């Protein structure tokens, strides 16, 4: 069992991702939802390519031309005081 951490924010291990991908034959999105890899503070900026690589090895899902784990706004954490800004 490889306990190497892949997603630092949520401390998801290589084993967690491999096991989840193998058990549920997951898409990148499903792995993200099941394990929380890529859902932490950094928004997957650090582990995204690593998660793609694990999935490619586990399920044969190759990174296509679309970015596998969809990027959602906000791409940085935003404090509530920032929201509601005016248009300049």
């Amino acid at each position: 069992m490889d306990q190497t951490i892949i997603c630092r924010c949520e401390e998801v291990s290589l084993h967690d991702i491999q096991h989840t991908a193998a058990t549920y034959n997951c898409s990148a999105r499903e792995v993200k939802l099941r394990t929380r890899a890529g859902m932490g503070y950094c928004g997957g900026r650090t582990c995204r390519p690593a998660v793609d690589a694990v999935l490619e090895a586990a399920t044969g899902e190759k990174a296509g031309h679309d970015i596998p784990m969809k990027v959602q706004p906000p791409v940085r954490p935003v404090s509530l005081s920032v929201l509601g800004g005016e248009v300049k």
Partner: protein
Amino acid sequence: MYDVVIIGAGPAGLSAAIACRESNLHVMVIDEFSKPGGRLLGQLHQEPNGEWWNGIKETQILLDTAEKLNTEIKCGVSAHHIEKVEHGYAIHTNIGVFDTTNLLIATGAAETAVPIPGWTLPGVMSIGAAQVMTNVHRVRVGKKGIVVGVNVLSAAIARELQIAGIELHSMALPIANTVTKKHADPKHVMDGLVRIAHLAPSAFLRFGSKFAKSEWVRDIAVKFYPKGGVKMWGMPIHIRKAIVQINGTEKVESVTMCDITADGEVIAGSEKTIDVDFVCIAGGLYPLAELASVIGCPFQYVEELGGHIPVHNEQMETPLKGLYVAGNITGIESAKVARAQGTLAGYSIAKNHAKIQQAMRDVKAVRESASIQFHPAIVEGRERIQRSFLEYENAQ
């Protein structure tokens, strides 16, 4: 309301701003960091002709020109969302929302992680982190360290640490796992190493680089790679040794190093503990394209360029009206290429047709004369992106 907002004040963003200001456009450059310059700030290396490439000086040259042209540059501003609106784009930032007709995304690259056991310990950092600490903040990242990952970028930065008087034990490969695969394969790493051989006085690598295109010569070079590593600037570079574990409880105390076969497999019983207080992880760069993704720009996966690239043409336009890209977001290359691309993107945005053709030639010329090539097939990768732009245009 701006004519153009530029996200990223690195070599691409600043050069683009200058080109736009030449045509008197209403420009604003934003950057997350407190100083402009981006990754250019940390760069410091000696060119093959002996001259120093000093990123701080190069940044200052760009800033002086930008200032003469009254360019608005806002630092400490981070964009978290972009919306397509009727007249252009609305840029959501921590200091408010800015409206603009054109948008240039020049957000550069992020470092690819190389996860190995123990890499979350304090004292483990990306190689770029060490570069910024050393050359920008002038802070020593530790007393003695080791570099995990052998590639163009890590060799260059290891040299910078050395120049600053920071002791490095060596450079070695990461232990092979599903993620580190490429970085842990001695043959793959050797291919990269021979491409930078001309920069360092190493007879072994220079010899190897002469045969770089021949696979069997490369395999022999890997097989008979010196036990003590090949020295570049006096520092051993190992491609037959891997770091299997970073050790420590509160922070880095040591690493465990193993001998590996020519295929990257660990040789049992070869473990050695090396005392270090910092570790630099080097997995290369990938284009940081999240903002382009959020607005729905189409992408192509191009390995030669480092990953998912926003589709764009030779003039740096994307298929989305008014959206431009420049610098490492369009593919991993040197700061000089980024600078030339920025200028080109600026002229494209300003519709300065008199200068676009020359700027396009400049990008090519800078690329051809680059002393460091991040990937041997960059030109082919660029052609693929441009073809997909045409396909996209034709489909519309």
